[in-house]
């Protein structure tokens, strides 16, 4: 079809200049000439999160989508260079606070790798339990946001209500509801009481039961299926090419899970499966995450049943401390005596973790002399799958933007760090 237009000078809308929208002037002019329309979704938009997506639409179809992340950039990596190794633990869980245990475990494992610390078995089981709790919490959080993006308020409230159980479990075991900072190099901060483990075990049953109701009202809802089927499809090849990670990669048919590959913590001692989808559309991405919740419940139950007795902090760290037996149960009172002296040998130490939304990579560079890291590189899953997210937008309708956004569970604070 021959495109016809009047060659009159096009003035890009005035708002593009004061808002510092980082797209070239020619791009805007070109769009306006070719009967297309540029819509700025965000950052002040109920369905965008803390980011802007410059959406170029033709009619109702998205032709191009340019992300503009960085609105919640907090310079984690630079801040980390001025803090002790141990002080970085609370810092690095901030990007995605629902997922705090997984974020702790990634950073801590890089340090353990560098210092060659052996983690006691009980501590590994406790770590696994809290990592999986965090994963369930993240999946529930994203399911809630996803539902409200589709206009389903009940689907928003129920997962958030269920997440209260996980916050309560965190509170009983660690003293905080969300940002636990519970996992430290060489183990965990304190032993977890049997009554708390019993509470976690029971709340898994509640979550499993309530998820059935959620399935009825949201997952199997015909309107939801109509909205999500064949929307924002990423094929297997595309998903690999764009570097999509985590549940979203598995939804496209790639059975890659760092927990299986590396087998850190207690994952290789427990029985569980990696849920894999085929279609790679928004609905499959969501179903994979829902299935991961039930797998996490399975892991937690096994871990609580099989948890061994023993110390929760590595003897490599405790060293020749006089109050050995006390510190093996609870680090309280000896925290800085043990950890403030940590100094990594010279070199670069990397760890990969499967966080709630996918692969999380920490890379610590140490000069071997100072007690602060020389450089910490942190690559979050959100940042890794942003490209795939933008590519899957192309060709879908403008109304599907929120559906695809929710299916990826894109979380700007996590991606911006």
């Amino acid at each position, binding site marked *: 079809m021959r495109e016809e237009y009047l060659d009159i000078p096009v003035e890009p809308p005035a708002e593009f200049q004061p808002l510092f929208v980082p797209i070239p002037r020619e791009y805007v002019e070109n769009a306006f000439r070719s009967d297309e*329309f540029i*819509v*700025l979704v965000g950052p002040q*938009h*109920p*369905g965008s999160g803390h980011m802007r997506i410059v959406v170029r639409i033709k009619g*109702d179809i998205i032709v191009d989508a340019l992300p503009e992340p960085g609105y919640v950039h907090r310079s984690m990596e630079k801040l980390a260079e001025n803090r002790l190794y141990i002080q970085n633990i609370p810092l690095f869980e901030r990007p995605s606070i629902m997922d705090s245990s997984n974020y702790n475990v990634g950073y801590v494992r890089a340090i353990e790798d560098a210092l060659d610390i052996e983690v006691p078995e009980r501590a590994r089981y406790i770590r696994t339990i809290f990592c999986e709790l965090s994963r369930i919490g993240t999946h529930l959080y994203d399911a809630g946001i996803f*539902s*409200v*993006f*589709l*206009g*389903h*308020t*009940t*689907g*928003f*409230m*129920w997962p958030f*209500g269920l997440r209260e159980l996980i916050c309560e479990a965190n509170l009983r075991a660690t003293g905080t509801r969300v940002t636990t900072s519970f996992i430290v190099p060489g183990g965990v901060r304190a032993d977890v009481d049997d009554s708390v483990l019993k509470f976690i075990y029971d709340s898994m049953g509640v979550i499993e039961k309530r998820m059935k109701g959620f399935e009825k*009202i*949201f997952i199997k*809802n015909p*309107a*939801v299926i*109509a*909205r999500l089927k064949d929307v924002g499809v990423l094929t297997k090849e595309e998903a690999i090419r764009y570097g999509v990670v985590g549940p979203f990669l598995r939804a496209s048919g790639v059975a890659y899970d760092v927990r299986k590959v590396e087998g850190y913590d207690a994952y290789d001692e427990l029985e569980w499966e990696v849920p894999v989808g085929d279609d790679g559309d928004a609905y499959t991405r969501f179903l994979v995450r829902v299935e991961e919740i039930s797998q996490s419940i399975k892991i937690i139950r096994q871990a609580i049943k099989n948890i061994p007795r023993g110390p929760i902090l590595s003897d490599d760290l405790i060293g020749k401390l006089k109050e050995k037996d006390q510190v093996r149960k609870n680090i309280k009172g000896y925290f800085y005596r043990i950890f403030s002296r940590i100094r990594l040998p010279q070199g670069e130490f990397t760890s990969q973790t499967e966080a709630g939304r996918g692969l999380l990579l920490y890379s610590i560079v140490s000069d071997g002399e100072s007690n602060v890291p020389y450089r910490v590189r942190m690559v979050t899953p959100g940042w890794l799958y942003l490209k795939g997210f933008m590519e899957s937008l192309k060709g879908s*309708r*403008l*109304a*599907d*933007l*929120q559906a695809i956004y929710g299916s990826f569970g894109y979380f700007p604070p996590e991606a911006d760090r």
Partner: protein
Amino acid sequence: MAVSGTSRQKQTDEVMELTLVNTVFQIFSSNMMDIPVIKPLVDVLMTVPIVKYLVALILWKPFFAVILVPGLTGLMLSLLFIIWFERKLTARIQWRMGPLEISRSIGGILQPLADGMRYFFQEIIIHKEAHRPYFVQFPILAFIPVLLPVLFIPAGTVYAIRTPYALPVIVSLISMIPVVIMAIGWASNSRLAFIGTVREAFMYFGYEIPFIIAVLAMAVLYGTSDLYLIVEKQRVWGIALNPISALVFLITMAMATSRLPFEIAEADQEIAFGPFVEYSGILFGLTMTLAYEKMYILGLLFSVLFLGGGSGPPLPFLGDLTPVIWLYIKAVIIMCIMAFLRAVYPRYRIDQALRLGWTYLAGLAVVSVVIAGLISAGGLLP
């Protein structure tokens, strides 16, 4: 001579004025609401010189129908109720308490009133790009097509205008509301408002035709479009005679009042309330209640067409008020059913809603016309 002439003139003026007032009073008092409970009070008040005109006016049936129930006051009360009910119902389904801060002892039912007051005292921001006069006028003008249909809806003998063309007039007035919404979106002059306006226009074509055909089916079935006669003819309720028409009416009603799953034109997560994105303060309050007002009118129409209008078991001592109350209760129940949808459904996409409207709903509407034709040809109705 001149003096007496003027005084005579004055006298005739007074007499004429008196006769005019008396004529109007005659008109009022000849068609008054007969409510046995307050009859003694009315009788006393009718003997008081000036108050009697006022009482006659208020109890004059057309005035009562338009200004009180089912008209303006009923509309406002149902608005306050349904917004509270919707919030409370969805809250109960979602493991929450719902509004309780205002008037805790009666379940927070005054919350919508408090919200309305807050809207009233908020600043109305009119942005630079807006078409100022239209931007301010249209939310208020929107009340005209919303309120005028009340004139034609009979609650028993309480009605303002009785005409054989009542049904077409109501349908055409209701069809004018989306035009006002589109004008609102145009006057807002914003991208999201523009997208919302286009969506509203598409939805309008999606639901309006099945809706009109479904209403037409009922007119065919009853053989008249005089709503008063339609109510009289319903020995069996219309919903039992032609359930398909009722179904189409209900679904198109959800589409017309932008309830979920058809809240497409003002999808707040996608286009931030669409045509109403730029409004604030009381103007936003007006635009927000527009859909609820439309829902009330459609609920009244549904009650009249399918649920026997004002018919129902007689209430003792209420006389002419009985059909008014029954009609009102039926309309509010229909609104409650619509409010329930919000807790269960997400939003459809515009193309899916249009496909539904143009295929299934239009087909069902045609089927309902056939059913109506068969029933009316078979002489099943008196």
